C-alpha cells in the first residue's frame, strides 16, 4: 500500500502544528495571569498593612468606639474644609508648600518666606558676604484647573511621536522624543517659567549666585521626594552631575562635553549644594540648574553596562512615572510608552491619570488616528493644518493651535561672507547681502507658499524671546534700492546683456545650495531665481542630498545655502554660530562672518545680569540686521491639534503644559 503524503496529511499536519502553538501560547498566558495575581496579592498585602496601621493610629488617638466614630465624623468634615481651604490658598499663592502640619491655614504667609523655620534659621544655609538670595515662588501650574467647572481626576492623554525613540533613559536619550518623555518623569533644579520665560526654581527653593560668576549655592525645597517616596537630598544633585553625567563609563558624552564649565558640585548640607565654575559665563546658571536630578539610590545599584544598554531606566521626581522599572523586563522600542501619575508627587498633582506616547510614522495615518479619536494630540503639517481647519464642524472636535513661541525656529539663507576654496564670493560685501534681502518679498512668500502660516524673521532671536530687539522691523521689499546698493558695490550691467558685472568683468552668478525636498522648497527656489534674474543676477540652484549637508557646511563649500535653526530656550549662547572663533575648526560659523560682532558676543557671555544681557543682545541684533549675514526668512509657528476631550488647554510662550489638562465633561446630548 502506498504511503503518500497527500493533501489530507498536509492539512492534518498544519492543524496539529496550530494546536501545538495555541497550547503553548495558552501556557504562557496562564503564566502571565499567575504573575499578575501574585503582584495583585502583594499589593493587597501592602494596602492591608497600611489600613491596619491607620486603624491602630485612629484607635490610639481617640478613646472608645463611639467617641471614635463621632470624632472621625467631625474630623472628616474638618479635613474636607481644610482641603478646600488648602486648594484655594495654594492656588492664590498665599501658602507655600513648606508649611508644617501644625500651622494654621488662615495665617497668610508671605509669598517668599517659608512658614516653617528650619533649625538653622531662614538664611542659615547661605554664604555670608551679602550676596543676595533669590527666593523662588511655590511651584504651581500656569493655569490652575482646580476651580474650573467640571474638574475631575482621570483620563489618559495620548501623544504621537513621528519616529521611534530608541531609548528613554535620562541624559542617554538624545533624541527629541526621549527628552519629551523624560521631561515628565524627571525634574531639574529650575526651569523657564512657561509665561514669564524667566529661570524659576522647581526643586530649588532659593539660590545665591556669585556676582563674579564663580560659584552658585542652591537650597533645595523641603518635602520633595522621588516617585518612590525617598527624599531628594543634595547628594542626589551632586551624584547626578559627578557620577552620572560625568561618569566616563556612561554614554553621556553629548551632555558631558557641554557642561565643561562646571568644575565641581559640593554637598554643603542635607539640602544645600554648591556649584563651582571654572570661568564666569552668563550661561553657567542655566547649565547648573537645568540638568535632571536623578535618584542615586536607584541608579547606583546598576552597573554602567546596564544603564548604557537599558532602554527605559527612567526614574525621577516628576509628576508622572514609568510603572515598570525592572531591569530585565524593560520597555522595548515598538511598544507604546505609558506613564502613570506619580501619586507621591510633591508638587501640584496632575489630573490626568496617565500619559501615553505612540509612534505613527505616516502623516496621513496620524491625522486619521486623530480624527478617529485614538490619539489626543498631533503635530499637523502646514498644508494639513490649513485644509483641515477649514472643515465644517472641526472646531467642535479639536483645538487648532497655531502660535509662535520661544522654541519656534527660523529659516534663513546663509550668504558666504568669507572665501570659498580660496576665492571670494560676491557676498563678502555687506551691501550685496542687504540687496539680496531687499529683493525678496518675504511676506509674499509666507502668504503664497506657506499659506499665511508664519511671520517674517527679523534676526537670530525673534519674539517672544526677550533677546529679540523689539525696535527692529524687517527690511522691506524694495528692488529699486537693491539695484542701487548693487551699483554702489560695483555690480552694474556693463555690456547690456541683462546680467550684472563687476569691474573685472565677472558675471554676478552664484550657486544656491539646498537639500532635496518637497513642494515648498521648490517653489521658494523658483521665486528666488526669478527675483535674482529681475535685477540681473544669475542664480544656479544646486540640489544636494541632506546627508551631504554636514560636510558642505564644515568645508564652507557653498555660495549660499538655506537652512533653519531652532531654539530650546528663551536665550541661547550666540557664540557657536556667530563668533569669529567659530570660523576655525569647522565651527558653526560656516558663513565665515567677522564684522565686529565678537565684542557683543563676549559681552553677552560675561554679563551675568539678565536685563543688561538682554540689552547687549539687542545691540548685537542691530549689528546683524545691518550686516545681513543671513537673510532671515520665516519663523514657523507651532501647529497642534488637541482633542476637545480635554480642558484647560492653553498656549504659552514656552510651549504647552499637558500636565494641567483634565478630562472635559461629556457634552450633554
Amino acid at each position, binding site marked *: 500500500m502506498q504511503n503518500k503524503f497527500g493533501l489530507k496529511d498536509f492539512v492534518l499536519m498544519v492543524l496539529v502544528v496550530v494546536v501545538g502553538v495555541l497550547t503553548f*501560547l495558552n501556557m*504562557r*498566558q496562564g503564566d502571565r495571569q499567575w504573575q499578575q495575581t501574585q503582584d495583585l496579592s502583594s499589593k493587597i498585602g501592602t494596602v492591608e498593612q497600611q489600613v491596619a496601621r491607620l486603624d491602630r493610629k485612629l484607635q490610639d488617638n481617640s478613646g472608645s468606639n463611639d467617641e471614635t466614630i463621632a470624632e472621625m465624623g467631625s474630623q472628616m468634615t474638618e479635613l474636607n474644609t481644610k482641603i478646600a481651604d488648602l486648594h484655594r490658598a495654594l492656588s492664590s499663592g498665599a501658602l507655600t508648600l513648606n508649611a508644617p502640619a501644625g500651622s494654621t491655614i488662615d495665617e497668610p504667609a508671605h509669598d517668599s518666606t517659608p512658614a516653617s523655620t528650619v533649625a538653622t534659621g531662614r538664611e542659615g544655609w547661605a554664604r555670608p558676604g551679602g550676596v543676595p538670595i533669590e527666593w523662588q515662588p511655590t511651584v504651581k501650574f500656569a493655569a490652575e484647573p482646580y476651580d474650573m467647572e467640571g474638574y475631575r481626576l482621570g483620563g489618559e492623554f495620548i501623544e504621537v511621536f513621528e519616529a*521611534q525613540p*530608541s*531609548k528613554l533613559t535620562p541624559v542617554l536619550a538624545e*533624541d527629541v522624543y526621549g527628552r519629551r518623555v523624560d521631561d515628565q518623569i524627571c525634574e531639574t533644579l529650575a526651569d523657564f517659567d512657561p509665561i514669564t520665560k524667566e529661570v524659576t526654581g522647581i526643586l530649588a527653593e532659593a539660590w545665591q549666585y556669585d556676582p563674579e560668576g564663580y560659584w552658585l549655592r542652591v537650597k533645595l525645597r523641603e518635602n520633595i521626594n522621588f516617585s518612590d517616596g525617598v527624599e531628594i537630598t543634595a547628594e542626589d544633585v551632586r551624584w547626578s552631575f559627578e557620577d552620572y553625567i560625568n*561618569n*566616563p*563609563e556612561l*554614554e553621556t*558624552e*553629548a551632555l*558631558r*562635553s*557641554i557642561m*565643561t564649565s562646571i568644575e565641581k558640585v559640593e554637598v554643603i548640607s542635607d539640602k544645600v549644594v554648591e556649584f563651582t565654575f571654572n570661568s564666569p559665563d552668563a550661561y553657567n546658571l542655566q547649565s547648573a540648574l537645568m540638568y535632571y536630578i536623578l535618584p542615586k539610590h536607584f541608579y547606583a545599584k546598576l*552597573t554602567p*553596562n*546596564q544603564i*548604557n*544598554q537599558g532602554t527605559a531606566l527612567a526614574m525621577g521626581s516628576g509628576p508622572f512615572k514609568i510603572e515598570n522599572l525592572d531591569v530585565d523586563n524593560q520597555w*522595548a*522600542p515598538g*511598544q*507604546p510608552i505609558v506613564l502613570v501619575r506619580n501619586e507621591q508627587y510633591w508638587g501640584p498633582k496632575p489630573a490626568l491619570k496617565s500619559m*501615553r506616547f*505612540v*509612534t*505613527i*510614522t*505616516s502623516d*496621513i*495615518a*496620524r491625522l*486619521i*488616528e486623530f*480624527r*478617529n*479619536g*485614538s490619539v489626543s494630540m498631533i503635530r499637523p503639517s502646514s498644508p494639513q493644518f490649513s485644509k483641515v481647519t477649514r472643515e465644517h464642524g472641526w472646531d467642535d472636535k479639536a483645538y487648532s493651535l497655531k502660535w509662535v513661541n520661544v522654541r519656534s525656529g527660523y529659516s534663513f539663507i546663509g550668504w558666504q561672507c568669507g572665501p570659498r576654496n580660496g576665492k571670494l564670493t560676491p557676498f563678502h560685501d555687506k551691501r550685496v547681502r542687504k540687496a539680496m534681502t531687499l529683493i525678496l518679498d518675504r511676506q509674499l512668500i509666507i502668504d503664497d507658499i506657506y499659506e499665511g502660516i508664519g511671520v517674517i524673521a527679523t534676526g537670530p532671536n525673534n519674539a517672544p524671546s526677550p533677546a529679540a530687539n523689539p525696535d527692529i522691523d524687517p527690511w522691506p521689499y524694495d528692488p529699486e534700492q537693491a539695484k542701487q546698493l548693487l551699483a554702489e558695490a560695483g555690480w552694474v550691467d556693463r555690456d547690456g546683456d541683462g546680467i550684472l558685472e563687476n569691474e573685472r568683468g565677472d558675471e554676478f552668478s552664484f550657486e544656491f545650495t539646498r537639500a532635496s525636498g518637497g513642494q515648498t522648497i521648490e517653489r521658494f527656489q523658483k521665486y528666488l531665481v526669478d527675483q535674482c534674474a529681475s535685477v540681473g543676477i544669475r542664480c544656479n540652484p544646486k540640489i544636494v542630498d541632506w*546627508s*551631504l549637508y*554636514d*560636510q558642505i557646511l*564644515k*568645508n564652507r563649500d557653498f555660495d549660499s545655502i538655506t537652512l533653519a*535653526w531652532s531654539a*530650546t530656550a528663551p536665550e*541661547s549662547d550666540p*557664540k*557657536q554660530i556667530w563668533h569669529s*572663533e*567659530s*570660523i*576655525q*575648526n*569647522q*565651527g*558653526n560659523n560656516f558663513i565665515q562672518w567677522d564684522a565686529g560682532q565678537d565684542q557683543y558676543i563676549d559681552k553677552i557671555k560675561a554679563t551675568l545680569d539678565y536685563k543688561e544681557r538682554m540689552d547687549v543682545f539687542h545691540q548685537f541684533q542691530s549689528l546683524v540686521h545691518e550686516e545681513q549675514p543671513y537673510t532671515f526668512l520665516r519663523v514657523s509657528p507651532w501647529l497642534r491639534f488637541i482633542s476637545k476631550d480635554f480642558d484647560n488647554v492653553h498656549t504659552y510662550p514656552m510651549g504647552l503644559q499637558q500636565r494641567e489638562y483634565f478630562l472635559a465633561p461629556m457634552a450633554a446630548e
Partner: protein
Amino acid sequence: MGVYILRRLLLMIPTLLGITFLVFMLIALSPGGIGASLNVANGQMEETSRAIKEAYLEDRYGLDAPAPVQYVRWLGRISPIKFGKRDQIDPTGEFIQPPKEVKTPPLWRWYVEELPVVEPLEPYEWAGDETEDEKSSVYRRQANEYSKARARLISGRALFDTELGKAIGTLEIKGAFNHKGKVKHQTIEDQKSQIEESEFGAKINRLGNDLIGYYASAINERAKLVSIFDAKPYPQAGFGVLPGMSLSRPDLGKSFSKSRPVSELISEALPITILLNLIALPVIYFIAIPSGMLAAVRAGGLFDRFSGSMYIALWSFPIPLAGVLMIGYLANHDYLWGVFPASGLHSSAADSYTYLPVRGESGWQPGYVLDMLWHVVLPISCLVYGGFAVLSKQTRAAMLDNFNMDYVRTAKAKGVGYKDIVFRHVFRNSLLPLITMFVSIFPAMLAGSVVIEKIFTIPGMGQLTLDSIYLKDRELLLANTMMIAAVNLIALLVADVLYSLADPRISYK
C-alpha cells in the same frame, strides 16, 4: 549529495566576506563616512564641545581607525575563534574585554625626550576569601579610575587639537588638515617654533605638557587594571584551545546610533517581519497557484482572461498609493468601511488583553491574537496584492507547456482520470519554476518592505536596515548585510536541493 551541500556551505564563507566588505567600504567611502550620524549636530555646540564629544565617541567606537581596519576588527568580534587574551563574563552576562590600549599623545616629542613607560605589574593578589561581589567591585573601581584617566587624556587631546587648529588657521599652514578636518600632526611636527610664537602658543604648550601628564597617569591606571584583569575577577568566556586562541560566542556588537546590542535590535524586528511575511506568503500562494491552474485548464476562457488582466492591473498599482488610500478610506471612522486600525500592530490596551477573546462585563474583548490579526489586515493586503500576477502567470505557462507533452497524451490514452492528470502529472512537473520563485522570496522577507513599514508604522527589519544605511551605523549595517546575504545564499542552496528532490533527472554527484 552531502558532499555537494558541504562544498556549497564552505563556499558561502568567502562570498559572505566579500559581500560584507564591499557594502562596508561603499558606506565608508560615502560622504561623512562611518559614524557620520553621531556627529550630526542635534543642537548647537561650540566647536570645543563638539571636538570633545567627537573624541569620546571616536575612542569608544574605534572610528578613527581606517575603514579596512574597522572591518577586520568586526570580523574578529563575530568569529567564534578568537585570538589574544580571553574575555571574561560578568554576572549580568556582558563581555568584559581586556583593557584598551592608551594612544600616545600627539606631538609628544615637542615636550619630552622619551615617553613615560610603565612596567607591567604582577597579577593582583586576592586575599583569598573575597566573594564574587567583592572581586567584582575591586575590578569596577579600578575600571572607573582608568576610564576617568582615559577621559582626561581624550578631552585634553581634543582641546589640544582645537587650539592647534586655531593656530594653523591663523598661520595658514597648508595641508595640515586631513579630509575629515582633523589636524595632521606629522605635517606640522617641524613647525614647533612657528606655532609657539603665535598667539595660541602659550596655551598650546600648557595643554601639550598636561597631555604628557595625563598619558602617564593613564598608563599607570591601565597597568593596575591589567593586573587585576589577569587575576580573573570573573569567569572566562568560551573555551581555551591553545594559548592565545579560544572559542567563544560571536558578538555582533552594539549599534551606536541606537546604543543597544545589535542582536537585541534584530531579535525585536525580525519576528515582526517574519510574521508578516509568513502570513502573506500562503495568501499569495493559495490564491495565485489555483487561479493559475484554473486559467491553464480553461486556457483562453473567461476566467483566464479576466484573472490575468486583473492581476496585472493590481501589480501595476504603486504600493505607497495603495497604502495611503487604504488608510484614508478603510481606517477612517467617518467612512462606512473604516473599521481597520490606521497604524501599528497592537491596540493601545493590548498589553492587558488575554490571548483569546473574552466576553466580560464591559463587553467583548477581542483578545491579543485577534487584535493583532485585525491590525495586520491592511499591511498584508498591501504586501500581497501585487504578488499574484507573476506567480499565477508562471503556473499557467508551465502547466500549458506540460499539457502538450507526450506523456500526458499517453496518460489520457491509458484512461487516467482528468483530475489525476492535472494534479499528479502536469502540476508536479510545473513545480520547478515555482520553487525558484519560492526561494527568491526569502531574502525579500528579511529585507522587509520598507514602504509598507513606514506607512503602517510597523517596526520591522526594513526600517532597521534603512536606518542603518542612512545613519551609517557600522555594526547594525554589517550585521544586517550579513544576515540578508547569508539567507540569500542559503535560499539558493535550498533551491538547488529542492530541484534535485522535485526532479529525479537532476543530481549532484
